[in-house]
């Protein structure tokens, strides 16, 4: 795939054709040399910031992943691969990680990248401001040493199995010290006009319209990047994003921006390619408030498990693109699934049994409050189906769709709910995202608000998060499923499957588990 000449020729032709069709992009396009073609990807809105060190916003990550890099990237198996770190060593106790940094890498403004940038980023940005990493780094008591300009050593107070898989550009992007040091980081100019080490440079941000990146001529992995430009076009209307792919106006649309009802149609379209089912594992679940009168009884929770039609949820809520829930951690991490205690075995659909369990739990017909985020249409459908299922066994379910921040307050701070519908994802490792679902917690958003607290579970979760050996961890997670599938503080409804779609002209996409990452190797034909 190194037919640069042919590609360049094709591109000129296509530009002419585009101009003729009245679709030419604005002038300034493609003046970069070396790469060829522009890929247009859709986002839904202006991102809140272009600093991935302080936000986990999806669009921020989508754009920043092309500009910034991190120590490692994850391949489709979620195995760490070298990026800004060329190699690394983990001590056998899992408490020291030593990274050799890539030499000869420069920031887009020409300054050299060194270990000082790494230390600064972790100490001053991620450790303080990153929504996910700050808490992780604090609890690990991470200390970073830089014996020389090209070595970074992380010393942790305790072992943490997912440490490496969390060193990605989404959780641990490396930012330039010389631009952020001494600034108010969220308001710093470089948070709006980022300067990274990645394959593409920030070019301009036309608010409400698009964000343009151009090729980084001095990228360390020559001859990459292959593209001259990447444009993130703001397309607020979901329907236009799928239509845009079909008309060829858009080249790539991430699953996050894809209207679910349109997916089956797009997947049948011969001019499009897609990647289904390879994604950061994410589960959608119903969390019970185990402190509420009804769901304090395990039997009531089990009754729900027997009443809720999970395959129908998959079919009608996700248009068939998901996998019905099998247990406490879903089946996104194949190595930990315990098939012996799966939901299918324990809780086959059975309204009669469910009613009996409900009776045993002493349910008196009082209303059940089901709380969810009103801004997510899928949750609305999900809630309606569950309500229907639970009414069939005699439960009086009242839906309470709430504005997001109100929902967070009601569920995670006040814990005023009976059932809440949520979804969590877990990048690369179950310990990152799923521990919080079952570990005893008393405060904070997006964690275990069920009130379920089991010392045995806490202990197992802690060990599963720190044990360095995969087999040992699998055994621990299987043991956890024995307890959690029985106790059911949360009922996993389904495992999300994402479908990323692109036109067939684009190649080299999706080499990482996160579809947004690794764009240096992306090419486009006839543009």
């Amino acid at each position: 795939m190194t037919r640069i000449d042919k590609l360049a020729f094709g591109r000129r032709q296509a530009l002419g054709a585009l101009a003729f069709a009245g679709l030419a992009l604005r002038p300034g396009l493609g003046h970069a040399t070396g790469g060829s073609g522009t890929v247009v990807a859709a986002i839904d809105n202006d991102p809140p910031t272009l600093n991935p060190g302080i936000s986990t916003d999806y669009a921020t990550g989508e754009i920043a992943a092309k500009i910034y890099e991190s120590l490692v990237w994850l391949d489709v198996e979620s195995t760490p691969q070298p990026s800004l770190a060329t190699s690394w060593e983990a001590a056998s106790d899992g408490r020291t990680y030593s990274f050799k940094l890539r030499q000869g890498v420069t920031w887009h403004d020409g300054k050299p990248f060194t270990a000082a940038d790494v230390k600064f980023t972790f100490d001053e940005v991620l450790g303080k401001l990153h929504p996910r990493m700050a808490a992780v780094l604090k609890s690990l008591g991470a200390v970073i040493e830089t014996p020389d300009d090209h070595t970074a050593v992380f010393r942790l107070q305790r072992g943490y199995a997912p440490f490496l898989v969390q060193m990605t550009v989404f959780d641990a992007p490396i930012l330039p010290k010389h631009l952020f040091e001494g600034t108010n980081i969220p308001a710093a100019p470089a948070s709006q006009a980022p300067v990274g080490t990645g394959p593409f440079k920030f070019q301009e941000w036309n608010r409400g319209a698009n964000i343009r990146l151009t090729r980084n001529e001095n990228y360390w992995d020559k001859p990459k990047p292959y593209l001259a430009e990447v444009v993130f076009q703001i397309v607020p209307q979901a329907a236009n994003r799928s239509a845009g792919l079909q008309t060829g106006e858009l080249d790539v649309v991430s699953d996050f921006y894809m209207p679910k009802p349109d997916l089956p149609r797009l997947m049948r379209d011969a001019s499009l390619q897609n990647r289904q089912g390879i994604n950061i594992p994410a589960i959608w679940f119903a969390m019970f408030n185990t402190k509420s009168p009804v769901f304090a009884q395990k039997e009531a929770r089990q009754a729900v498990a027997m009443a809720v039609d999970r395959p129908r949820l998959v079919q009608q809520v996700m248009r068939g693109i998901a996998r019905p829930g099998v247990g406490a951690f879903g089946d996104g991490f194949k190595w930990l699934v315990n098939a012996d205690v799966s939901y299918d075995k324990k809780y086959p659909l059975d309204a009669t049994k469910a009613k009996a369990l409900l009776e045993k739990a002493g349910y008196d017909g009082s209303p059940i409050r089901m709380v969810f985020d009103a801004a997510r249409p899928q949750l609305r459908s999900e809630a309606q189906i569950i309500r229907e299922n639970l009414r069939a066994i005699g439960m009086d379910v009242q839906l309470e769709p709430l504005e997001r921040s109100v929902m967070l307050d009601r569920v995670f701070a006040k814990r005023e709910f009976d059932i809440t519908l949520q979804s969590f994802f877990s990048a690369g490792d179950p310990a990152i995202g799923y521990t919080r679902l079952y570990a005893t917690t008393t405060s904070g958003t997006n964690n275990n608000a069920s009130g379920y607290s089991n010392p045995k579970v806490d202990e197992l979760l802690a060990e599963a998060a720190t044990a360095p050996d995969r087999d040992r961890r699998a055994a621990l997670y299987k043991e956890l499923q024995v307890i959690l599938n029985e106790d059911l503080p949360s009922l996993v409804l389904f495992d999300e499957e994402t479908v990323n779609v692109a036109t067939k002209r684009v190649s080299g996409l999706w080499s990482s588990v996160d579809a947004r990452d690794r764009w240096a190797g992306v090419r486009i034909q006839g543009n």
Partner: protein
Amino acid sequence: MSAPLNPQAEAIATSRGPGFLRRLCRSRTAMLALGFIGLVILLAALAPFVAGHDPMVGGDDAMLPPLSPGHWLGTDDLGRDVWAQTVYGARVSLMVGLVTALFAVSIGVVVGGLAGYYGGWVDTVLMRVSEFFQTLPRFVLALIVIALFGSGLWKVIFVIAILSWPQTARLVRASVSSLRQQPFVDAARVGGMGDRALLLREILPNVAAPIIVTGSLDVAAAILLEAGLGFFGLGDPNHISWGSMLNEAQQYLRIAWWMSLFPGLAIALTVLSFNVLGDALNDALNPRSRVRS
């Protein structure tokens, strides 16, 4: 969305000449509208018997087109019967429309009556308040309030009512202040009647007719507003409403048009009927200003 929508309302006089009912009955459109409203009320009341399905229970037969066996208007994305939903949706729309209009008219009559009867600073203050409410963009405000405080049937009714009364108030005020100077009111006052009795027994009955007209138009406006909120995803999720049905239909327009067509038609026809009825009542009340029929 408020006064300007029904400019004729301001022009309604208080005369209630003889032959009012006869004139009303003679209008074919008015009778049609009345008939349709009756039909909708009947369907709403008899919903469990005429729906044929539980509107909240779906199944695997999702997005069946109209005229499918057992579902003559088709099914929605969750396999629920569109006819059953439309019939049950009538309950919410009618309830919101009628209760809101009742609320709005009650507040309007009290405020307008006080302002018109007493005049002076009472009038000034109350009219300023009502003017303030008229300045507020009703839909935008209702949207923000419901979005922030969470949805619920009664919240929706309350918010719409709070934003709907000024029009009635201004109308009542105008009528009352002109009636106050009428000889028969003076006569009653001279006869020793108190303010309250005077207002309740002599003046208000004479304002009743135009109030009914605005009430009917208020019903129509409230149904539309509720549909708008529902369309924004802010309807009460525990009741089926036409607006919420349209909200769900939005993402399936390409695949299942019937999810949008029938609830929309229901709103349009019901609102149309109340508007036509309001106009016909107005014409019947004011034969001289019959410029529209």
